[in-house]
């Protein structure tokens, strides 16, 4: 029996929307993360690398998925978080980032939660997909606040 409000397989994590993304956001992310690869900030470098324009840092997209994970688990409760980058994200695109609980297991009074994650761009193109595993107190609910210890 699950308590009212407890996490269920199939529950969707509160989604996050971003964009339309602006090149200045890539510049800001580059400075904050220390990733100064000009592929993300210099259109001439991006063109010489075979892209039409600068592309978003993959880790910017994973960072947005990290925000989605906060709907389930605070930074102390995440155990594993992995993402595959499937397509470049360009300026002007909107991203819709979400996730869904795929498995639950109770062990030693804790709830082990697995979820799948996705980042969709314009036209539902899949930019990134991933998974997470978190360890929560039994009976935990989706919070969206990211403050679970």
């Amino acid at each position, binding site marked *: 029996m699950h308590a009212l409000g407890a996490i269920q397989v199939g529950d969707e994590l509160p989604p996050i929307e971003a964009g339309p993304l602006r090149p200045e956001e890539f510049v800001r992310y580059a400075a904050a993360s220390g990733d100064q690869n000009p592929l993300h900030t210099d259109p001439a470098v991006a063109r010489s690398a075979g892209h039409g324009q600068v592309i978003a840092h993959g880790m910017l997209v994973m*960072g947005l998925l990290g925000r989605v994970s906060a709907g389930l688990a605070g930074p102390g409760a995440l155990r594993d978080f992995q993402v*595959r980058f499937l397509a470049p994200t360009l300026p002007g695109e909107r991203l819709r980032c979400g996730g869904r609980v795929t498995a639950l297991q109770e062990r030693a009074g804790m709830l082990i939660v697995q979820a799948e994650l996705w980042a969709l761009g314009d036209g539902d193109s899949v930019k990134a997909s991933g998974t997470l595993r978190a360890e929560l107190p039994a009976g935990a609910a989706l919070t969206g606040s990211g403050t679970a210890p």
Partner: protein
Amino acid sequence: MIDPAVIGRCFGPYRVRVERAQISAFAAALGEMNPIYHDLAAARAAGYPDLPAPPTLGTCYGLWANPPLLAELALLGAPLPRLLHGEQRYSYHAPIYAGDTLTASPAILGLERKQGRSGSFELLTLETQWHHQHGALALVDRLVVVVRNSVQ
């Protein structure tokens, strides 16, 4: 092409100090405005001893933010202009907070040759085990980088 003998090669060690200002700026660049990442009092009220690391903070200390490590890979035949991020995995073993000092020696775990539509490429797997100042394993960062054999 990269010599398969690079598998097992270690780099560093690299040491980083986790700074409050970096946590706050990094979270803000992701649009993450939860006060636990920006305000010490809010973090403490939520039960954390200091600002906690957002889930992907490790990237601030990883390959893309480490010019000496990028230079090492360039010497092995994997220069930055031919690299793309393929996959990223973080395994969380102990919490990381502002004020911590982390140390790691990234290692090449694997090298795989692939054939794609636009030519051959290699997948280089780099694993970084970050340890806390007291020796405990904190974070395992496993990064798969796509090394294109031409940039077109």
